[in-house]
């Protein structure tokens, strides 16, 4: 860890504080790193309900596809915590008393804080069935849950997966890799329907079928049925009353910020913990960052939820700076995510909601899954889309009169970084707009030409 000499010296004059961070994920750990870089002296404690050290949640998808063993997702070793002089308490934080500046833990103890960061993250939404805790009901949201999923997959023969987002798709891919006959139930008529258009969905459909996935469109499970002894999953009940036999039931119907600690406290909540651009909550010396925080977003001019890893890292950094008194506003970048699904590389940048009907208001929270941002689905008027597709390579641009506001690329990724830059910089594309709207090969060629000219212009 490199320390900023001046900042450290300045802080030496102050009394040593106790920084308490609840949550050992991307936001919590980044905040700790940031705090220590500015304050060499103060005490720091990180509280986690999970048994492991900090791990990569997006990495869990690669654990079930067998690309890495579970231990490899651990992104910080014990030595890292020691070096940072960051104490780890493995216990759930159960209650917060802001007037006494205390948090009470499940192990019966309490911690008194000077500055508190809540970075509890989000967890998978459980299905609305009475038997959701049966053995065989699996989630892909924690390392423990992922290990259970793999264990179940070793014994299981037939799985049903529900959920319309990226996590459900990753779970399906993982189960196929684990050699489980996998049935994917979808409410709608297309895959990842909050994000994909018909063609993009069809492309992924083709890949999934080739990998042996059974996709059931417009199919919903209404109930999970238990085995004779009532402990394990035996089947899913379909709306027509029939039973669909399965021993694994994968759930990825969305995520919910973990807010238990702040319920019934003066900390203001909406769907997440409301924070300003400094990650400050409504209560002094209490901060929030990451998946549990609903931060102000200049793009949509609203407080939005982002369940994206880079957002959690960026928010953790801003929270850490605010906590040491070196406040810097959050400069939220363009939402950006890259994933690999059944061999297809998919990149999503900015606003890509393909819906055009004004009546079609997206139920964003319900469908927000790990790896997505509300900004993708936020509505902006008068957006046009342009399209280019060749084989398994597609490119969709979303733009207004003068600038690009979003893009979705499948396959060929050459334009991913240029598009990210152009969207972020709000570059004026009006000169090439007709060529972009023409679509096809011309779109790609013009965009590349424009990019090279843009780069030269920026360099000068």
């Amino acid at each position: 860890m490199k320390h900023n000499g001046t900042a450290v010296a300045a802080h030496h004059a102050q009394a040593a504080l106790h920084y308490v961070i609840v949550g050992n994920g991307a936001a919590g750990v980044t905040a700790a790193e940031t705090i220590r870089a500015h304050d060499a002296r103060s005490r720091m404690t990180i509280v986690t309900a999970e048994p492991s050290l900090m791990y990569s949640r997006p990495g869990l998808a690669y654990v079930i596809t067998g690309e890495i063993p579970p231990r490899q997702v651990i992104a910080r070793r014990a030595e890292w915590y020691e070096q940072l002089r960051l104490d780890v308490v493995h216990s759930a934080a159960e209650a917060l008393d802001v007037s006494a500046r205390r948090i009470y833990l499940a192990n019966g103890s309490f911690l008194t804080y000077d500055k508190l960061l809540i970075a509890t993250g989000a967890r998978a939404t459980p299905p609305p069935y009475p038997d959701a805790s049966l053995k065989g009901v699996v989630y892909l949201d924690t390392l423990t849950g992922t290990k259970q999923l793999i264990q179940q997959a070793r014994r299981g023969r037939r799985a049903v997966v529900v959920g319309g987002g990226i996590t459900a798709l990753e779970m399906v891919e993982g189960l196929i890799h684990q050699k489980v006959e996998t049935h994917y139930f979808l409410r709608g008529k297309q895959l990842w329907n909050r994000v994909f258009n018909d063609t993009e969905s069809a492309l992924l459909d083709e890949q999934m079928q080739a990998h042996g996935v059974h996709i059931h469109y417009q199919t919903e499970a209404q109930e999970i049925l238990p085995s004779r002894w009532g402990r394990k999953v035996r089947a899913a009940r379909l709306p027509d009353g029939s039973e669909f036999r399965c021993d694994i039931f994968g759930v990825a119907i969305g995520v919910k910020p973990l807010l238990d600690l702040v319920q019934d406290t003066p900390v203001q909540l909406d769907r997440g913990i409301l924070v300003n651009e400094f990650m400050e909550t409504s209560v002094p010396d209490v901060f929030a960052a990451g998946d549990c925080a609903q931060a102000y977003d200049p793009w949509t001019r609203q407080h939005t939820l982002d369940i994206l890893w880079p957002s959690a890292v960026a928010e953790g950094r801003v929270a850490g700076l605010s906590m040491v008194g070196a406040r810097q506003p959050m400069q939220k970048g363009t939402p950006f995510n890259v994933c690999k699904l059944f061999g297809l590389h998919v990149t999503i940048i900015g606003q890509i909601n393909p819906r055009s009907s004004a009546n079609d208001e997206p139920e964003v929270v319900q469908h927000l899954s790990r790896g997505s941002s509300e900004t993708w689905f936020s509505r902006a008027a008068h957006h046009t889309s342009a399209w280019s597709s060749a084989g398994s390579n597609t490119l969709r641009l979303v733009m207004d009169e003068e600038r690009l506001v979003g893009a979705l690329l499948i396959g060929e990724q050459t334009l991913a970084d240029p598009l990210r830059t152009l969207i972020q910089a709000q570059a004026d594309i009006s000169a090439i707009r007709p060529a972009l709207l023409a679509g096809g090969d011309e779109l790609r060629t013009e965009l590349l030409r424009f990019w090279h000219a843009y780069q030269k212009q920026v360099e000068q």
Partner: protein
Amino acid sequence: MSLFSRLFTKETEKEAITIVHLGRVQADGGRCVQCGVCGYNCPVGIDVRSYARQGLSVDDPACITCGQCIQVCPRGTLRWERMVIDEA
């Protein structure tokens, strides 16, 4: 498997790795999700993730510039950067 064929297999595996000189692996920290797929595939055991998450180039002297980490990264975080040699 005979000793001869074992040696032969090993040799083939070694040859499969192309070593590219005069360059290094550079990371876009904003893309990194710290999954560790890079380091897991590094044949010399470099903790590539610790460089990648900070957006640093992999400056480990043990790096044999084989490019395995670039190929396996699921998020496109890593790329090859040619080193400019100062002729002066």
